[in-house]
């Protein structure tokens, strides 16, 4: 029977198979076609628009008519560096950093428990616990938090029932982060940001933790590392790419949000609000553009660092 069949078959008929065949035989062409749409859309339109926006930051606004003057100048950057604007930048970056750090700390036990110990129904519960907040309206959540944090809100009520009002008052008495009530303090803004973006930290972190072979932790214990040392020397470094990936989300989302600080907080502007305001205010588009340069530069540096840590694989 081995002599009957041909050793090499005739090519198949049909246009589509032949076309696919052509493409497969020209892998470069194939790859080119695959990345073409994304390159056109993101590489040309999106990045082009970004660059156009950045170029605007080198224009200025005419003080008399309020119209944009299309001439190269660094005047707008001078304006950006005014103390009030620097405050905004600093405030936003510090907040984004704090939210990111806190999200990492808070996400870790959840992600670790879900990745390593949760089984069966518990695993499902953790999954739902992370996914549900993602699926319920962002705005409704923010408004719900307002009710929680208000002076006559739920948290205060709980503290009162526990006779712990003094502790809350002491906390609110702290300079900078405190305030008249949680809902009008940086602490409140921080808490809501943390809540809203936490799932975006948990997911990549959990994915990274699942991939840490349990054998490594046993190996560490075997070599004499007590649990704290295993955590510090093995689990943490291996989960770091996931954490960095998550921080790209938490950091950038906090950096650009203009809704949360408007509803919860002490009315001091955050970067997103400033951009929104300058852009919307019948055209200080140069200043709005100058403001956006900051997150672009910050995220650019951040991404550069993150990619070196291999965080892109862990997103």
């Amino acid at each position, binding site marked *: 029977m081995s002599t009957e069949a041909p050793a090499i078959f005739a090519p198949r008929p049909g246009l589509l198979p032949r076309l696919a065949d052509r493409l497969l035989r020209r892998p470069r062409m194939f790859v080119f076609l695959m990345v073409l749409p994304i390159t056109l859309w993101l590489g040309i339109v999106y990045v082009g628009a970004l660059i156009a926006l950045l170029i605007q930051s080198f224009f200025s606004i005419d003080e008399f008519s309020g119209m944009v003057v299309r001439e190269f100048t660094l005047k707008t950057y001078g304006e950006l560096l005014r103390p009030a604007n620097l405050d905004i930048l600093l405030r936003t970056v510090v907040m984004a950093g704090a939210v990111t750090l806190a999200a990492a700390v808070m996400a870790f036990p959840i992600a670790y428990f879900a990745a390593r110990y949760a089984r069966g129904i518990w695993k499902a519960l953790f999954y739902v616990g992370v996914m549900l907040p993602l699926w319920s309206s962002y705005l409704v959540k923010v408004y719900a938090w307002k009710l929680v944090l208000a002076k006559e809100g739920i948290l205060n009520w709980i503290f009162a029932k526990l006779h712990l009002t003094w502790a809350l008052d002491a906390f609110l008495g702290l300079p900078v982060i405190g305030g008249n009530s949680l809902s009008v303090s940086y602490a409140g803004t921080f808490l809501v940001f943390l809540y809203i973006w936490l799932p975006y930290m948990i997911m990549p972190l959990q994915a990274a933790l699942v991939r840490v072979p349990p054998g*490594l932790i046993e*190996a560490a214990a075997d070599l*004499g590392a007590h649990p704290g040392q295993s955590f510090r020397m093995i689990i943490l470094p291996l989960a770091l790419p996931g954490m960095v990936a998550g921080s790209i989300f938490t950091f950038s989302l906090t950096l650009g949000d203009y809704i949360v600080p408007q509803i919860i907080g002490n009315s001091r502007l955050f970067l997103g609000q400033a951009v929104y305001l300058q852009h919307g205010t019948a055209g200080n588009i140069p200043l709005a553009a100058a403001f956006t340069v900051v997150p672009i530069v910050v995220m650019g540096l951040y991404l550069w660092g993150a990619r070196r840590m291999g965080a892109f694989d862990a997103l």
Partner: protein
Amino acid sequence: MTDAVTFRGVSRHFGDVRAVDRVDLAIRDGEFFAMLGPSGSGKTTCLRLIAGFEQPTAGEIEIFGTSARGVPPYLRNVNTVFQNYALFPHMNVRDNVAFGLRVRGMGRRERHAAAEEALALVELSGFGARRAGELSGGQRQRVALARALINRPRVVLLDEPLGALDLKLREQMQEELRALQARLGLTFVLVTHDQDEALSLADRVAVFAEGRIRQLGTPAQIYRRPASRFVADFVGSSNVIPAEVAGIGAPGQWASLRPEDIRLDPAGQAARVTGRFFHGRVTKLTLELRGQRLSALIPAQQAAPEAGAEVRIAWSPEHLHLLEAEA
């Protein structure tokens, strides 16, 4: 002298699975001990019990005379070479090796020196700065060994350390392991399912099946006097034949006969060659003798018959070993 490791009626059950089932065992200080058995027979679980990753469901484990009950792994002076090496991927070779010293708080300079020394021991000087991913299988295995040895543990546990290596490398690593053990005088406990590895390396071998020890003895005892059909079959591919065919013992009993003990002999019984495999220094024949499948090894110097040929075979009665009835 106290034994290195003692099991007294130790069991470890996972739900219904009796991974380790009432095992009694004493591993002597300084010996090279092997646990041999098919997959799933409980070898790894035994090792994990010694290392402290598992706690016995019943029974008592002692390490150098001290009860190990409730002692966590990091407090046991016992180190493991894991089957897949479990090298830390985010550290270079030196930091991997020095890990045990680092967690004990030794300073950087000192532990690096110690790591270099340990690497020299496994002939990997100069590899300290590499990442684990940049090593070949054999090199990784040696890093894992150096990492386990640097703590100067009283007992070294090796879980199929050579399983992933290819034949050539495996043989070389076997020699090195044995030499190292002899030199350091440590107690080595090796888990393997490769009977050749167990026989050639160990001072004593425990043959496991279904969570229990089927036979414990020196390699020669195990090979020449298998206690049961299972052991005979598992340790070196023995022919296990009914007593009637073998010509000894009572009907219903079984005897084992090693393939190398069958010889071509014009005066022997008639058998048919069903296959012939050239193995270099020997040729393996598969034979059919009165309905029994046998295999025989013929020295390469001798001309081996073709498959399909009729031959006559014989063996000396002293090579037959009567097996005890199966438990």
